[in-house]
């Protein structure tokens, strides 16, 4: 498969040598060796089926340096446009590294930085890499070069949501960072996480976060992620969640890209259903413009039956942007009584954007209900006329219809205060866009 991968890329040994690494504990060194072996073949190009719509050809040409070794990056405050999530504890990462000075106090929370956790506790060996497989190229890259991140071990019910704010910023050279967030739960525990990923203007950066979520029996993790891209950064994020019996995993991911956005965002979410009676909802929305490329890739693997999963994805495309949805629903042999649904709809707002969609069903059990739907198109002329016939001008009508189109996805956000925050961010995108043509 040598031809499928882009072998010339900046993440060689020279890059590794410049990274300020995590403590050199044996298990981690060993894990990193495996990871480096996985990516020795290179970064995925268009020939690799999972990356056919988002090949990393251009990325491989950028001479990234490890963010930790960039000494000309100075972030002193959280940008004001980061939304406030009512009641949430703010945890700030700059270029993937925890910043106590910008964060709220972590007192009383089951939350540590990855650096602390790795140096102080032995149980990290069983937590890092527990659910995220090195066979995913971005997980391997992250594992090879991760420097910091967060470890959240939830006992009981955490009432205050955690708001992780991840800021990417490059100095005079492009930087790359590979934070790892590990979330584990005890049986019956629950947690809500909101994440805001933004970049500061300047040189391109690569954010390569990996989030591992372990949902125990009867536990619940709700995670709401928003990625905003205004420049030409790469945001290649992978989430892998494992859900035990009666566990709940709800994820909502939003991708926004402005008029001048030229970047590439890929939000890849894998969920492995390992028990009966679980509830899984992985949904998302994207609104992109410029030449932004946004990719949602999901894999829901029902390894055990008797569970339900649901996916609702909606996208709005302007400018010459490119939207991708790849969704794979897998039902293993004997995973009977699985109920899995998946839908992706994309709306064109201009001549110029492109949409690629590949919803996949892979079903090896018979007593199942599985369905997917996909659609692409422009605004409906009957709906536009109906609005006009009630005196609503075309610009307002289009805005209402686009908002309504996205509302179906936004409605999947189970937490009302988060829903309001996300809806407002989406509305602001639509407003900035102005008179949709």
């Amino acid at each position, binding site marked *: 498969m040598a031809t499928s991968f882009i072998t010339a890329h900046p993440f060689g040994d020279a890059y590794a040598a410049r990274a300020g690494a995590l403590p050199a504990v044996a298990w981690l060194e060993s894990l990193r060796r495996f990871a480096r072996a996985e990516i020795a073949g290179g970064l995925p190009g268009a020939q690799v089926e999972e990356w056919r719509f988002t090949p990393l050809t251009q990325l491989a040409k950028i001479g990234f340096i490890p963010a930790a070794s960039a000494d000309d990056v100075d972030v002193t405050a959280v940008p004001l446009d980061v939304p406030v999530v009512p009641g949430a504890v703010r945890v700030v990462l700059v270029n993937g590294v925890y910043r106590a000075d910008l964060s709220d106090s972590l007192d009383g929370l089951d939350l540590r930085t990855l650096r602390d956790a790795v140096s102080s506790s032995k149980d990290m060996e069983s937590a890092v890499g527990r659910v995220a497989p090195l066979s995913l190229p971005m997980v391997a890259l992250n594992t090879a070069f991760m420097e910091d991140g967060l470890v959240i071990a939830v006992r009981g019910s955490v009432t205050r949501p955690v708001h992780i704010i991840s800021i990417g910023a490059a100095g005079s050279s492009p930087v790359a960072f590979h934070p790892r967030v590990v979330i584990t739960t005890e049986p019956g525990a629950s947690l809500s996480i909101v994440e805001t990923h933004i970049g500061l203007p300047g040189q391109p950066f690569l954010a390569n976060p990996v989030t591992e979520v372990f949902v125990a029996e009867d536990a619940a993790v709700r995670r709401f992620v928003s990625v905003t891209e205004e420049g030409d950064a790469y945001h290649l994020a992978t989430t892998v969640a494992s859900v035990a019996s009666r566990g709940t995993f709800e994820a909502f991911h939003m991708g926004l890209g402005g008029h001048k956005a030229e970047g590439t965002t890929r939000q890849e979410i894998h969920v492995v259903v390992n028990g009966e009676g679980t509830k899984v909802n992985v949904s998302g929305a994207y609104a992109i413009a410029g030449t932004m490329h946004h990719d949602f890739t999901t894999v829901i693997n029902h390894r055990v039956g008797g569970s339900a999963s649901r996916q609702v994805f909606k996208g709005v495309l302007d400018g010459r942007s490119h939207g991708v949805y790849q969704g794979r629903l897998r039902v293993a042999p004997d995973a009977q009584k699985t109920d899995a649904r998946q839908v992706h709809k994309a709306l064109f707002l201009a001549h110029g954007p*492109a949409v690629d969609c590949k919803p996949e069903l892979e079903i090896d059990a018979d007593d199942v209900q599985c369905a997917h739907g996909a659609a692409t198109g422009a605004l409906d002329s009957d709906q536009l006329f109906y609005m006009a016939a009630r005196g609503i001008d075309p610009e307002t009508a289009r805005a209402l219809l686009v908002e309504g189109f996205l509302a179906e996805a936004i409605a999947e956000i189970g937490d009302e205060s988060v829903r309001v925050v996300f809806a407002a961010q989406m509305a602001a995108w639509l407003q900035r866009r102005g008179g949709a043509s």
Partner: protein
Amino acid sequence: MAAISQTTAAVRDVEQYKYGFVTDIETERAPKGLNESIIRFISAKKDEPEWMLEWRLKAYRYWLTLGDQEPTWAKVTYPRIDYQDSYYYAAPKQQAKYESLDEVDPKLIETYNKLGIPLKEQQMLAGVAVDAVFDSISVATTYKKKLQELGVIFSPISEAVKTHPELVKKYLGSVVPYSDNFFATLNSAVFTDGSFVYIPKGLRCPMELSTYFRINEKNTGQFERTLIIADEGSYVSYLEGCTAPQRDENQLHAAVVELVALDDAEIKYSTVQNWYPGDENGKGGIYNFVTKRAACRGRNSKVMWTQVETGSSITWKYPSCILQGENSSGEFYSVAITNNRQQADTGTKMIHIGRNTKSRIVSKGISAGRSSNTYRGLVRVQGKADGARNYTQCDSLLIGDRCSANTVPYIESRNPTAQTEHEATTSKISEEQLFYCLQRGMTQEEAVSLIVNGFCKEVLQTLPMEFAVEAQKLVAISLEGSVG
């Protein structure tokens, strides 16, 4: 008539696959293996002009450069094929230049009778003209004269190469180029026969044209090539059927079908594919690796593919439409049934190039036993295809808990005024429906057949009448032993 009694005996042994018999007939074969001299031999046997041989050789040389690059993306597994361990030419010894059917070897006539394809015109289904292809060659074409009077050319392609070289030269490889894919390239090098159809301007072909393919010989690959051209404003409905004897080894069938529809022309292409599927343990059966593609070149042209795929141990085929002409439309209706150890990876590609092009895809997959059944499809709307529309419906039905059903659609849109819509479902055969039927006194198998036929109805009803009835029976037979 030793052959007939032998045939009858063979048929008795075969319960589920009633076409599994072998016809005992003297055969002329080229030596085993594939090389330039085999290709020259085939070409010489067919008395082909030089340009045809050159085309074959070009394809063959290109195929050599492909090495082991067989397509690997389909969800099918099979042991490596040894292309040198097969015969590329086999023909009943009696030559195929019959002036009348009376000269055809009675064994062949009997074989086709057995298959339900009578070749004697007086016994034939009214209004269906048949080209019968036995192993590598066409043995009979019926209603030839009548069609000739209308200006329709319906002949073995080997004959058309000589009688209508200008048409063959112009269109052969124009839809599926020799370099298209591994199997199409192989076919271009070694194709032996197949049908050629030309419908003249403005003619609505009054009878269904049909080709019946039969693999008889052992260790033989069948590589037929079909080319249909519907000139401006014409219409034709074309049917193909296929069967093969029951054998323990796998046999390769790598066909290419090219359709060309000019302005306002319409082609309806129906297939009932019932190659030998192998036994319940997956032994034997045909590898059906087929490239079928239609070019809707003209304005308002229309192509409709209907396929009922019940046979073959492996099916790999994607009848597609290149929708080039403004307002052209492509339709794909498919029923694919897999049972036992069968594997099917089938679907379509609809490429919208022209303005206001339309496509419709209806796919019904039924998996039973330990089989694997995959729908794989592509809908691509290019930038200039203003107003394009696609609707896709893919449903899978599972019978039993050891089989798998997969749906892999690709939807790529580059035009904001285009609308694509895709829906897919997977579920098992409804226990409520089954019980309802059983309660009314049906056997389990009758009930399954009834329900599955209902599930497939939207596809089956697009078949010409005579075939629809056959297809319904076939659906029932293919699922025998899948429940209970």
